[in-house]
């Protein structure tokens, strides 16, 4: 009886030591968690999550203050990647923060624009070019489609236009072959 007890305690101690040693020896030196989360977020900087940008949201997730399903531009795929990273169950997007939309870019109607610069101040990635009382224009390649410029415009001259699919950006679709149930001969 005592022998068995000692064996078990000894075994426990030994395995504990091995585990402790392994934890030190094979420690993974990775990016800080915030950066890893930030790398998954789509960087639209739209603030739909309730935080003023992707980095603040990443910080909030890392601190446990925000849930992983508050980013509509990241979509379900983004939630899944965050869940994988954090080792939690994926969950559906929280509709309170909006729904995923096809990638769009802002377009300024140059006939209406009054050159007020409000949109330039709103743009989180400096993708709008212009100056006071000068006509503004969106640099399409840099626009993240965050829609933050739409609301401040006093004359409603900014619209969001979904990106049109063209040949260089075209993707092969997932093969869906209709299941045809064969009738036995």
């Amino acid at each position, binding site marked *: 009886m005592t022998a068995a007890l000692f064996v078990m305690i000894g075994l426990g101690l030994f395995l504990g030591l091995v585990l402790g040693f392994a934890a030190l020896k094979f420690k993974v030196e990775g990016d800080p968690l915030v950066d890893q989360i930030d790398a998954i977020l789509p960087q639209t900087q739209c603030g739909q999550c309730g935080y003023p940008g992707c980095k603040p949201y990443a910080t909030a997730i890392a601190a446990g203050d925000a849930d992983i399903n508050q980013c509509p531009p990241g979509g379900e795929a983004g939630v899944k990647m965050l869940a994988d990273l954090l080792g939690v169950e994926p969950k559906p997007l929280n509709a309170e923060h909006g729904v995923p939309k096809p990638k769009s870019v802002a377009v300024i109607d140059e006939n209406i624009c009054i050159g007020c610069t409000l949109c330039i101040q709103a743009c989180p990635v400096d993708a709008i070019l212009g100056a006071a009382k000068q006509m503004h224009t969106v640099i399409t390649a840099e626009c993240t489609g965050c829609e933050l410029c739409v609301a401040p415009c006093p004359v409603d001259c900014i619209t969001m236009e979904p990106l049109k699919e063209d040949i260089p950006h075209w993707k092969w679709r997932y093969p869906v072959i209709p299941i045809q*149930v*064969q009738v*036995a001969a």
Partner: protein
Amino acid sequence: MKFSPFFTTNTSVSIVMLKVLLALVPGIIAYVWAFGSGIVVSLILASATALLAEAAVLQLRNRPVMPFLLDGSALVTAWLLALALPPIAPWWLVVVGTLIAIVIAKHLYGGLGQNPFNPAMVAYAALLISFPVIMTQWPVPLELTTIKLSFIEQWQYIFNHVLPSGVGFDAMSSATPLDYLKTQLKMHHTMEDIHQAKFFGMFAGKGAEIVASMYLLGGLYLLHQRIISWHIPVAFLTTLAVISGVFHWVNPAHFSAPLFHLLGGATMLCAFFIATDPVSGATTPKGKLIFAAGIAVLTWLIRTYGGYPDGVAFAVLLMNILVPLIDANTQPRVFGHSK
């Protein structure tokens, strides 16, 4: 929308499975010739159970029934199991085994193509552990007995456990050579003495060695049809021959000869039909060699030192566990890569 390639070879899973069944036929004929028609009853029972179980589970899983029923994979599993079971076992053994194979080992893992373990071997192992006595009672080769049951009498016995008057069960059943060998060796008899037993043939069990040769013939047909590649049978048989040969050479009194291992037990069935199951086996060329050699080593170990007479089923299942590991570490060099 159609995609390239716009045409394909005229092959299908059904054709592949049909060829496997065809390749088993010479073995079955030899089996009937050597041990009587009991095996036919088992085959019919197993086939019917497998098809019914397959259809029922597909229905439950909401899958198209007919295409999967016609793919023939259930029949292959059923036949392999039936050939592995003693042909004088009661009907429920075959039925329970087939149900384990189809329902548990195949469909609970996701059906065709998804099972990590060979379904027939899972069922065999489950039966061997659950019903060890029945599973080790094999018929005496016809050559050695005057009792020859007709097909109807076989049927009667398997279903109702009724033997014709004047025939005792002991008269028509015996241990297998592998089993006998093991018990005799425990009693410190030498190999030479043991081989004097009446049911030993030239190399292995009387009758059984003929059946094994016929499996070999069927296996060669599969090789010729490119249904299986040479890797698994060659690696399995060579490893088994080498390892048993070395030990036999060191101590012939204690270790049986390579040919006994090759033609005895389920060796040939395993080499060409069981270990070559594509779904649960290794897929890379190097992986197939490792996988088959592993089965051979385990088979020899279990046969020589283990508690059960034949080790093929356990060896296959143990190696099945290692398949993902083997495959991941034996990826062939891709064209244009230096690795």
